[in-house]
């Protein structure tokens, strides 16, 4: 009897080490990346660089919040970056046309709501294929964004109250980073401690079973797409102030980043289930990579390959870890 329990405990303990590595590997990777870049280029950990990094990571984190939950619920949205680009261009266009920043920001938010409604309506209510629908709505948003500036960017002379808020620092930490931390803390509470969050995980596992349990799956999905649209639009508005211009093709660089963050983040803590803590860690990793790569003089294409490889290995690792541990979770 004693031997038996001993064996069982031993087994579990050995297992725990592996589990630990799988669950916290992303955080180690993040720490290792930060330390490596700091050693190679001391300017990497200068106050200004850290400040910049946190600001750009915060904007990305806002953009990917809705996406994290959509992917966690087993659906996909590939229109988020184009919605951000459209909000970005619309705000720039409205400001240039003489409307104030408040009106322009409301316009940008409206873009997010409209595209969220369209995506949610078509995917959640009419049950059309999410990938193709969001490719199409993303294309639509992207082309409207290009049409606003007639194919070129719009540069602005003032960044209004959004710019002022974005540049506010508390110590060396930008205010927007604190807002993101609060936002993600709330999101963490909702996803891990409220039934709503459990529905998300359950929908990914078995949509039909969740429907049979009497949960309004379509309404939840609808809300998720609206959330994703609004979050992307907010990020787009912030980008307008951050770049003090409207860039119609800004979406492209966020596309792989968004999916990499969500899926790589899913690797952390939850064995491949996208969660907000993982997303923010992955966003920080990508921001560090961007900044460090620039300091080391890597070209864009080299960074692109690194990101693609990260995504590929992240996914492979998740699938491997899940299959190996399925019986034990």
């Amino acid at each position: 009897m004693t031997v038996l329990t001993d064996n069982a405990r031993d087994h579990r303990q050995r297992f725990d080490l592996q589990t630990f590595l799988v669950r916290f590997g992303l955080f180690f990777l993040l720490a290792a990346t930060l330390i490596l870049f700091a050693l190679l280029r001391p300017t990497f950990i200068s106050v200004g660089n850290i400040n910049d990094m946190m600001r750009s990571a915060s904007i990305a984190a806002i953009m990917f919040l809705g996406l994290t939950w959509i992917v966690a619920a087993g659906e996909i949205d590939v229109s988020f970056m184009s919605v951000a680009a459209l909000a970005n261009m619309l705000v720039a266009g409205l400001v240039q046309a003489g409307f104030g920043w408040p009106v322009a920001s409301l316009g940008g938010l409206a873009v997010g709501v409209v595209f969220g409604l369209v995506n949610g309506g078509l995917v959640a209510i009419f049950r059309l294929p999410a990938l193709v629908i969001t490719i199409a709505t993303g294309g639509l948003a992207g082309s409207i964004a290009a049409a606003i500036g007639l194919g070129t960017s719009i540069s602005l002379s003032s960044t209004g109250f959004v710019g002022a808020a974005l540049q506010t620092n508390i110590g060396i930490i930008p205010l927007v980073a604190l807002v993101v931390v609060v936002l993600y803390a709330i999101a963490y509470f909702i996803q891990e401690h409220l039934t709503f969050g459990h529905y998300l995980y359950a929908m990914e596992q078995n949509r039909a079973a969740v429907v049979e349990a009497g949960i309004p799956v379509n309404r939840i999905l609808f809300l998720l797409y609206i959330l994703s649209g609004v979050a992307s639009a907010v990020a787009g508005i912030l980008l307008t102030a951050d770049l003090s211009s409207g860039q119609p093709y800004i979406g492209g660089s966020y596309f792989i980043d968004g999916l990499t963050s969500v899926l790589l983040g899913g690797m952390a803590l939850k064995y491949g289930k996208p969660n907000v803590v993982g997303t923010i860690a992955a966003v920080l990793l990508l921001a560090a990579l961007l900044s460090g790569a620039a300091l080391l003089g890597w070209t864009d294409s080299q960074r692109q390959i690194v990101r693609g490889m990260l995504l590929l290995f992240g996914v492979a690792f998740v699938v491997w870890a899940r299959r190996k541990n399925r019986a034990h979770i």
Partner: protein
Amino acid sequence: MTEALKLPPILLRLGAFIGLLAVIAAVFQFFAPAYLSNANLHALLRHMSVNGLAAIGLTFVIVVRHFDLSFPGVASLGAMTLGWLLAMGHGLGVSISGGIAVGVLAGVINGTAVAYFKLPDIVTTIATGGVAVGLSYFYSNGTSISENFFMSGILDLNDAKMLTLDMPVVILLCSAVVAFIILHASRYGRAFYATGENKLSAIFSGVRVKAYILAAFALCGASACLAITLLVASSGAANVTAGSQLLMPAFAAVYLGAALFGAPSIPATLAGTLLMSAMLNGFTLLAIPYYYSDAIVSTVLIGAIAIFDPKLTAMLTGMVTGRTTAR
């Protein structure tokens, strides 16, 4: 109304396709009298051959119920490989084979990851597409390649004619015939469809499901690179962003065709491509900027999926005949 509904479905669908094509042609003919001229129809078909080839490859992947989002990136890599090989002084055959080999290799990587390692298709192909775009920068640091193009004769791929048809159209037709035979006139085609319909019963019917998924991805990569070869031939330079314009028209063509004819197939894809190219060519003729035409392509894609979706159609027919749909 009820009489019309009693016609054989294929006639109805064919009628809808011809009707749509006629409407598009009439609208553009009205605004741009040069639309139906001989020269423009040649341009239209040349345009169609690039998108059609990419869409034919994608059809295989859609038939096995997977997605490939990597083919635009892979096509860019293929284009740069082709351009680099030509610039190095290799012959036309070697260079084109090299470009297509890149596509096959990328397709095999995708297919292995998805079929054998069971990785999720969307994310995997996004990642491999990203890596392919990154790799395509290595040949020339991102500048376009056009050395030796005139000497090598690649431009003849675009300019040569065969029986009054342009060479790209001939290549599209040959590829379509081959794809048609594979998918619709051989047991391999049945196996592709069986894999897509029900993987488990396909396995028990003796279909090597994994091999077919792998083959579908490989065909998709290869045909994307063949498509980009034609694009490189027509523009006279290999470009790192060449592939990015393939994604939306190819998906739109496959889904528009599948929506019109009820299921993805080679004729349906060709019909979808023809509709898309008829529209895009018209917009080019009217000198409408690309961003408006992109918006219209997306709207058409959304509309096609929504209107021809069986659930929505059932709902609408129910409304027309005054019955509520059973829930």
